């Protein structure tokens, strides 16, 4: 299984654990979104002062 397929499988499992059954096409879209946003999230986390609170 290629890495992308295994990530889609992991997302499918995570969705199913919450009672939601998306299609593979749906999950590929989510994966693309996560691959864009997660590096931005990591950058934001680095930018935030440690004592920043909600």
């Amino acid at each position, binding site marked *: 299984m290629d890495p992308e397929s295994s990530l889609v499988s992991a997302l499918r499992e*995570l*969705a199913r654990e919450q009672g939601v059954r*998306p299609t593979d096409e749906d*999950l590929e879209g989510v994966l693309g979104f*996560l691959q864009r*946003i997660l590096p931005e999230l990591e950058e*934001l986390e680095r930018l*935030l002062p440690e004592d920043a*609170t*909600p």
Partner: protein
Amino acid sequence: MTLTRLAERLRDGELSPREAVQHYLDRIEAHRDLNAYISVRAEQALAEADAAVLAFSRGPLWGVPVAVKDVIDVEGTRTTAASEILRDNVAERDAEVVANLRAAGAIVLGKLNLHEFAYGASTTSPHFGPAHNPWAPDRIAGGSSGGSGVAVAAQLAAGTLGTDTAGSIRIPAAFCGVTGLRPSTGLVSNDGVVPVSWTFDAVGPLAQTAEECSLILQAIAPDFRPEPADGELRVGLVTTLLDQAEPAVAAVVEEAASELEAERVAAPMLGHAGLIQQLVMLPDAAAAHLPWLRERLPDYGADVRARLLAGLLLPATAYPTGLRARRWLADQVAPLFERYDVLAAPAMPIVAPPIGEDPVELRGERTPYRLTVIPFNSPASCLGLPAASVPCGFVDGLPVGLALIGRGGADAAVLRAAEGFQQLTDWHEQRPAIAADAI
């Protein structure tokens, strides 16, 4: 005719509530092709107009025909949210804002088209069809409160309510050439409104002028008090956003800001707002929709389904990081509001694109439409700030909106700036040809 003038004529007996309601019902029927309305309450509105004449007390909006976005409950009328899932959902009681409008004397004509579940900025529901821009019917009205913008621009209601989670009042106001206000978060009740995000949702008015928006806001927000128009407002023009807009749009906005004697100011920190808002809004929306995600997933349109699933599957740490970053961003932005009472910027970097066109052209690059929306609208939504879009000119015959953003709770200052701008200019008086025959 403006809402203010209409209210005066009703009060003076020059026009009866029934005549006013019938006028708008006739216009709604004549312009059905704009697809502004999902439900029209023709019989109920006429009956309510007749009952208004017998009313003991007459509020400031007595007999004024208005309409509300179809996520806002009106007793006995369906609230569809332009979705298949809620197609037959009939509200058992009025939303608090509707009850407040009625208490002020307004008559609700019907429920307005929107982006499915108010979760997108085009108003092109696959279930109820697109709302058409009155300035160019082959173009989108913006969204998610697209029908609310169309109804004001085409004079299919004297004023409307929309909701704004990440620009959903300001975008249709800009694209349709009307005035819209996203109030400070929490100023207006969300009771009886289908949620997108409990953190960011705000109900607000759209009308021809800021003065009318103020009148509607006074009706729906009992705690809101307008402020007298004395003293200068310090206005900062956010060059960080101006530089990201289409050059022709930026030129119109810059000219408009000069009317307010705006000082140019860079605000690069606002560039974080889009991401921060996504980190909180996406999980909020997924949580609100979880029962339907489980039972009705195929019934969502593709774009809304994709956003909801993204929220479902985002790592859990994203949410607290978003909340921490929001507080941090508020601290970064606070000094700006020590220097300025109001920040000005383009409400949108482009004019309304053709229906179905995505990506769109922005500064020579093909850009997904949603990415044109986020940088310009998330700063105010993310921080809960009041923000208006006022008409400020045209590019290629299509309206351009000037965004005016105030500090949290300073809704009156934003409206004052907008009213001041509208006293100096007449862009808000420009109407599409389709509205030329309105009263």
